[in-house]
């Protein structure tokens, strides 16, 4: 059974954008700082709308911020 995982480059993009703070990004995206922290750590998958807002904040396409990875469950391979 495949396990879905959404990865992101938010931390890297923040540093590349004049070391943008999490709070500043949260203000631009209209969410709390804790939501940005949770997304960066992979603890929360944002909605499509929020994902677009984050990409807009960095002025880059969505696929440069988020990527989708399919991981095979180890048990199914054995």
């Amino acid at each position: 059974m495949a396990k879905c995982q959404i990865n992101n480059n938010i931390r890297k993009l923040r540093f590349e954008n004049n070391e943008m703070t999490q709070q500043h990004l949260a203000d631009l995206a209209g969410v709390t700082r804790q939501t940005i922290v949770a997304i960066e750590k992979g603890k929360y998958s944002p909605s499509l709308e929020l994902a677009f807002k984050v990409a807009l904040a960095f002025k880059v396409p969505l696929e440069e911020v988020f990527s989708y990875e399919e991981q095979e469950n180890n048990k199914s391979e054995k």
Partner: protein
Amino acid sequence: MEYQEKRALVNLAATIILFAVYYFYVYSQYKELGVADGTDLTFWAKYILWLIPYMVILKIIIHIIMNIITVAVTKQEPKDFEDEMDKLIDLKSSRNGSIVFMLGFLFSMVALVMGYSPHTMFLIIYGAFIISGILTEGSMFYYYKRGV
């Protein structure tokens, strides 16, 4: 620890303490009044109905005090809006608490069918209130800490 995690912990502690205080008050009234079996239903119904405004008002007061302390310590006003993650966590936590309360309610009905008194039924319902409240707040803390 983030503001939402602290708020969830404070709510959890407040839920446990407020329920405990209220239970001991109600139990002392029960013993004092020497409620006979026939008036059990009225007595318990009254105190379960009073539980709702008691919890709502005291939780609002605790929330206000917590905001005042947060502003005093951090010199920043805590953001008082719910974004999508807050709403999802709220939804999942409420779901968990509701499931437990429903199970408790069903269990109280089973107790009645098995021949236990209405007194026992209300105690089980009250216990279900407590456990569902604790589980709701505990779930919020868990989801904020571990992700959702």
